[in-house]
């Protein structure tokens, strides 16, 4: 039960300690802070990889803090869904590498160490969120990552950034309250905060309070995931934050809501306290609506990052729809899309960041023709675009395939239809983007003179773009990795 305990703790403690020490390290020279943050994340990545290797090998395992037995002690539990830690670490490392030049350019120098500290804290919060087996811990980690997230949106100090951060804060606070309220109710019903324990005790509980608790929790997580119509905070926050932060926020932070939903499902399906039919139906519809509405808003944007932000809403729609379908293929597709979308969206946001860094422009109109000046960056963005639309053999395709298959499997062919045609809608604005970069005559000929992005930016972008292709070609690996977890999840309701 308690083999390898230090690792499971280390994956959270290392980045938190690193975060706390970053301002000290970076006090005299800002570059030091970048090195320090990078070192911290690399160390964390090694730990995360060891953990993922272990879960692939022998299934879920857990560690009980301080030797207090479950359900009294705090349990850290690592299952297949927790493998999202690997992707958190990967994006963390790449975002920090990318930030080296970007932060110097976008932020006042005194803030740079704090920027890295917040970034590490945010990553640590997500890492903790995905490995905890305890409901209250879940809430604490959610707050850590949310609070650091608000600050990161505002970090540039511009007025508009503060506005966006405030909007994000208000919505985020509402969602936190909803989740906290739900956790309180579950505690009142069962007298326990350990997830597995709650699930086993919830069986005979009265239906109405359980329904309220689940409903509140789902609501809270859906705000975090920015599903339509709870998405209003997302576009501004993600578009205005510095690009590496946008990559983290759009690629990872919204996924916290999804991982939270998976945890909720683990409790709900195991306990069988409630038939989730109604919730699932709502999620399917909201998912479909998100896909279409996200695409609809994105089509009218001229700002590249705004477009990408709306595209996140569509993609969260895919995932939520997959979860709501509650069929094996649907949930597998949704879970894998949590990983794949993170990679794809990070490619796009970092790519957009590089364009903004070099040209200082951020609208399609102004960026016309930039593909000739920055061929590698724009090629990477194109790969990301193809991938997010779900053209085979890229990463996005398999998820789309699985979720659509899940829809047919669950007897809802309409949702397969909505998904496939929603993707078509998404295609429209990515075509606009690629068209503008490659085929439109530049508005200002000076754009043809800009240089390719510096290596510290280009390398992360190219690594991610390569992963977009690799995750598609080797799609079998994540799919078969996540399958046992989904089978276990759906077993109590006869699926899987």
């Amino acid at each position, binding site marked *: 039960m308690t083999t390898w305990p230090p690792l499971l703790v280390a994956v959270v403690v290392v980045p938190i300690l690193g975060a706390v020490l970053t301002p000290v390290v970076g006090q005299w020279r800002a570059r030091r802070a970048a090195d320090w943050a990078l070192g911290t994340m690399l160390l964390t990545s090694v730990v995360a990889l060891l953990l993922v290797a272990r879960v692939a090998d022998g299934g879920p395992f857990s560690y009980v803090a301080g030797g207090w037995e479950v359900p009294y002690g705090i349990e850290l539990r690592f299952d297949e869904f927790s493998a999202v830690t690997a992707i958190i670490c990967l994006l963390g490392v790449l975002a920090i590498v990318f930030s080296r030049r970007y932060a110097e350019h976008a932020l006042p120098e005194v803030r740079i160490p704090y920027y890295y500290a917040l970034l590490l804290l945010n990553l640590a919060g997500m890492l903790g969120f995905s490995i905890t087996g305890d409901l209250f811990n879940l809430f604490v980690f959610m707050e850590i990552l949310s609070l650091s997230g608000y600050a990161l949106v505002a970090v540039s100090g511009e007025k508009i950034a503060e506005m966006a951060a405030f909007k994000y804060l208000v919505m985020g606070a509402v969602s936190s309250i909803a989740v906290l309220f739900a956790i309180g109710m579950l505690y009142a019903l069962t007298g326990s905060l350990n997830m597995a324990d709650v699930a086993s005790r919830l069986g005979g509980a009265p239906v109405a309070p359980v329904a309220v608790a689940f409903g509140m929790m789902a609501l809270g997580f859906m705000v975090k995931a920015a599903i339509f119509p709870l998405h209003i905070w997302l576009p501004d926050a993600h578009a205005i934050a510095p690009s590496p932060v946008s990559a983290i926020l759009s690629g990872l932070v919204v996924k916290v809501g999804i991982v939270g939903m998976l945890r909720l499902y683990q409790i709900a399906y195991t306990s069988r306290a409630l038939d989730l039919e109604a919730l699932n139906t709502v999620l399917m519809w909201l998912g479909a609506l998100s896909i279409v509405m996200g695409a609809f808003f994105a089509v009218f944007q001229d700002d590249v990052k705004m477009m990408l932000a709306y595209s996140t809403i569509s993609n969260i729609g895919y995932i939520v729809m997959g979860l709501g379908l509650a069929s094996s293929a649907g949930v597998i597709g949704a879970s894998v899309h949590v990983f794949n979308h993170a990679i794809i969206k990070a490619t796009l946001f970092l790519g957009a960041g590089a364009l903004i860094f070099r040209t200082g422009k951020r609208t399609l109109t102004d960026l016309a023709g930039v593909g000739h000046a920055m061929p590698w960056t724009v090629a990477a963005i194109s790969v990301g675009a*193809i991938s997010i639309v779900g*053209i*085979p053999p890229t990463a996005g*395709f398999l998820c789309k395939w699985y979720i659509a*298959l899940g829809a*047919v499997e669950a007897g809802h*062919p309409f949702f397969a239809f909505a998904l*496939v045609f929603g993707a078509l809608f998404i295609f429209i604005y990515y075509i606009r983007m690629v068209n503008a970069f490659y085929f439109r005559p530049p508005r200002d000929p000076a754009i043809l003179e800009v240089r390719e992005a510096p290596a510290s930016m280009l390398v992360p972008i190219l690594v991610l773009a390569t992963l977009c292709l690799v995750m598609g*070609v080797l799609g079998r690996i994540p*799919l078969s990795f996540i399958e046992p977890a989904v089978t276990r999840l759906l077993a109590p309701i006869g699926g899987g």
Partner: protein
Amino acid sequence: MEVIDARAALAPAISLLCAALVFASGERTFWRRLFSLSAALAKLVIVMSMLPGALRGVVYVFDLVQFTEGVGLAFRADALGMFFSLVSSTLWLFTTVYAIGYMEREPNRMRFFGFFALCVSTTVGVAFAENLLTMFLFYETLTICTYPLVIHDETPEAMKAGRKYLAYTLTGGAFVLLGSIATFQLAGTMTLSHPGILTMDAGRGTLIALFICLIAGFGVKAAIMPLHGWLPSAMVAPTPVSALLHAVAVVKVGAFGVLRVVYNVFGVRLLDELGVCDWLAALAAFTIIAASIVAVFQDNLKRRLAFSTISQLSYIVLGASLLTPLAATAAIVHIANQAFAKITMFFVAGSIQRVTGKTTVHELAGIGYRMPYTMGAFTIAALSFIGVPLFAGFVTKWYLSLGALESGAWWYALVMLGSALLNAAYWLPVVYAAFFKTPPSTHVEMQEAHWTMLGPTLVCAAYVILLGATVSVPGMPFALARAAVTFVFGM
């Protein structure tokens, strides 16, 4: 007999490699030409080397990756696929030579030749796709890769045509994807290696819906009316691209998809029971006649060619939907017959445009004196379309009419006759104008296009006669079509 052989995957891979090399060689003309030509040649050799085996009944298979049970990318060079890939790789070689001449002074040649190679790679991928997923993959990729070719000129008109093209074909792709998913769910497999994988157990309504979904998906590229709107507007592309789009890659992939759906997904027996093919045949017959009538009124040569393409493609669809062995033979061989004749015409249209700058039919008076070889090739293609015996087009018309009689739908034989008349009505005036009308000036000097353009034109015209005259010679592509028909009808 199935043999595991990497050549089935190598054929699409070699063009992919070629595209990568072309992109890597940048604006260095020599290397670009070398890579383009040697890849085209290598690919033809690879496909040819599989021909003797394919004629003996050997099927080359190769599994690339498997995502999960029954979902993966795999290649399978069966008779039908071999036939199609043989046509497309032969034409790729000719089109590459022609394009080198045609694109001599155009900008962005690296992009052009790179995506050109990618298109052919994906076309052969479709031909050798073992399952619907692989087929969808290449079908979609083809759409993406042709887009930069369609908008090559980057004029507002080209951009508009590109948008229209994408809107049509991507919607079609979405239908193919939906259909593939539904097929997988109903049949538990997506393989194209059987003469039909679905059964009546799935329910009549579901099967009809699925059939409509898949045919609509592939029908967009096959330009079945009313899904043909993208094709005439896509004519703004440079001529080698139009040739590629209309004769080799895009439209044929659609027609080939229809054949696969009819013969390998549903199967002849099931479709006979469902009765949906009567509707498809009627639609195809309508397209044949309607598109020909529109073509008569086109003055722009390339637009006339476009509507002729729409009409000719529906021969394939009609042949497939009659569900008899003879009609199926016609459908399959028409892939080659239409391809060679149509590409000849496009080459001619491009040569005329490059040499004289003329693009409309009424300007062509006396052009035959100026470009006799080019217009001679055109005449051969025109006679083939009209269906004169000894020319390739006759073979199609003959077998299609026999097939129509075999299935008891004799009126489709009349459609063939009507189409022949209409073809005569819009191709013969061009020939007449070229050779029998007096040229605008009395002093005419012979001025042919560069040999890189004239050569492929003449070779393709020769093929038209070869295909028409050697039907019963063993070892010719016709034997492959026979083998494919034997397989799908279980004879």
